[in-house]
């Protein structure tokens, strides 16, 4: 049996504002195994980003337990590269923060960046890169810290459709090749189907797991999955489940 990297056990989270309290999630249980690519979809306003903050340990649950083996790498909707830093300095940032910027780590990060076509941009500033390249640099920044699990918060939603398909394929390919564990949170059903091994469907607030589906495409390329006949079957099913 594979090791569980992330476990949510009966997690409850209450959100406090002056106007009152909101139960964002209650009795939420799921886990992510090593090497797995899990996608979570839910109706809008079910507190998806809150779940990622819980997973990253930035929020403490009001009740229940969040168990995390190892470190997390976060990827947000926009690349959030720091414009005053070169691509090199951006990629080395997490190592710098964790005070792990050894010559070996620096070299490993550089090798990773070169492997994925960022060599020519190593000393460029983010403003000199295209949207797709920037998102790729953001992924390499996340990977350079060698996280045990990647948390992806709709990382493609800020891109235009054409770029988005390409970047999705690009990023998914890199994550698969590096054998990384990933948890993707999105409202985009087709993105969830084209990327993941397993889809978790959440209920409305307070969010709980409504359904879990293992996707058996036997294929990990997002574009090829989109062409697959099963794709629309899954889409319809998930669409119905989200709207009940």
């Amino acid at each position, binding site marked *: 049996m594979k090791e569980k990297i992330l476990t949510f056990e009966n997690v409850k989270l209450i959100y406090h504002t002056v106007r009152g309290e909101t139960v964002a999630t209650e009795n939420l249980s799921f886990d992510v195994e090593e090497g797995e690519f899990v996608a979570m979809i839910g109706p809008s306003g079910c507190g998806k980003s809150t779940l990622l*903050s819980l997973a990253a340990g930035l929020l403490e649950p009001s009740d229940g337990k969040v168990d995390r083996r190892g470190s997390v790498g976060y990827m*947000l909707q*926009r690349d959030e590269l*720091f*414009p*005053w830093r070169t691509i090199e300095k951006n990629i080395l940032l997490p190592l710098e*923060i964790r005070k792990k910027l050894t010559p070996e780590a620096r070299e490993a990060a550089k090798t990773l960046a070169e492997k994925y076509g960022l060599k020519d941009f190593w000393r460029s500033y983010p403003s000199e890169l295209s949207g797709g390249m920037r998102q790729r640099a953001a992924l390499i920044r996340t990977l350079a*810290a060698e996280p045990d699990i990647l948390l992806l918060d709709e990382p493609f939603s800020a891109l235009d459709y054409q770029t988005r398909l390409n970047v999705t394929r690009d990023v998914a390919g890199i994550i698969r090749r590096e054998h990384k564990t990933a948890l993707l949170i999105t409202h985009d059903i087709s993105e969830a189907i084209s990327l993941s091994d397993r889809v978790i469907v959440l209920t409305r607030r307070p969010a709980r797991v409504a359904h879990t589906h293992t996707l058996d495409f036997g294929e990990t390329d997002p574009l090829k999955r989109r062409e697959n006949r099963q794709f629309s079957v899954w889409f319809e099913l998930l669409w119905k489940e989200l709207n009940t």
Partner: protein
Amino acid sequence: MKNPQNYSEEHLFWLKKRKKKLVLVQSLRVGLLLFFLLFWELSTRLGWADPFFVSSPSRIGATIASLYAEGTLFYHIGVTLLETVVGFVAAVGIGYSVALLLWWSDLLHRILEPYIVVLNALPKIAMGPLIIIWCGTGSKAIVVMTVLVGIIVVIMHMLSAFLETDENKLLLLRSMGAGKRQLLTKLVIPSSRAAFISMLKVAVGMSWIGSIMGEYIVSRAGLGYLIVYGGQVFKLDLVMTATVILCALAAAMYFLVVLLEKILVKNANH
């Protein structure tokens, strides 16, 4: 981008037109000043205006020359410049530190907020008599006045820039395990660089207001003193001269800030 050698006719024409316009703007700028000076001079010579009241460029030149001959020209400039620069540096330094402290401690920020707002609204010149009693009638009082005039603006400007730091970037850094100190050094301070420059530009103006105001109230030397003294004894040449020098100094200090901006922006590519 194409090489300059391969530019099309149209592009060359466009470049030429653009350059022509730049030259026009520059020459009209200088021309406007020359015209103004000439008109001023002529109107006093031809008797349209009384030079006793409005002075004239040549009389200002003569006043500068006589101040220089007396050996007091650079003394007065030096006194005011020193007070202004010391006050400016202190206001920026202390104000920036206070803004950092208030960013660091939300509690402190909330407690002090109404006090800062009130201090900002208070006309600082009202503190004049108090400052004289507390600090004496020397340059010290003027520097204190300069700091008082500038510091609140520095604090408010920088604090709002610190608080506007991108939430997502903060989240990202926190997810990397950054502590508050790292948030500050890696993100909050570098991302507020543009605000820092615009704050400096405001603070330069404030410092001149502070030092001249201070000299109006207490001083025995400096350009503000020359203006007040000149006004009291009806030597309007002296008033005009000091004002013109002040104009030149303020412009020079402003351009130094612009120069700093260019260096910083070039390094940041931002």
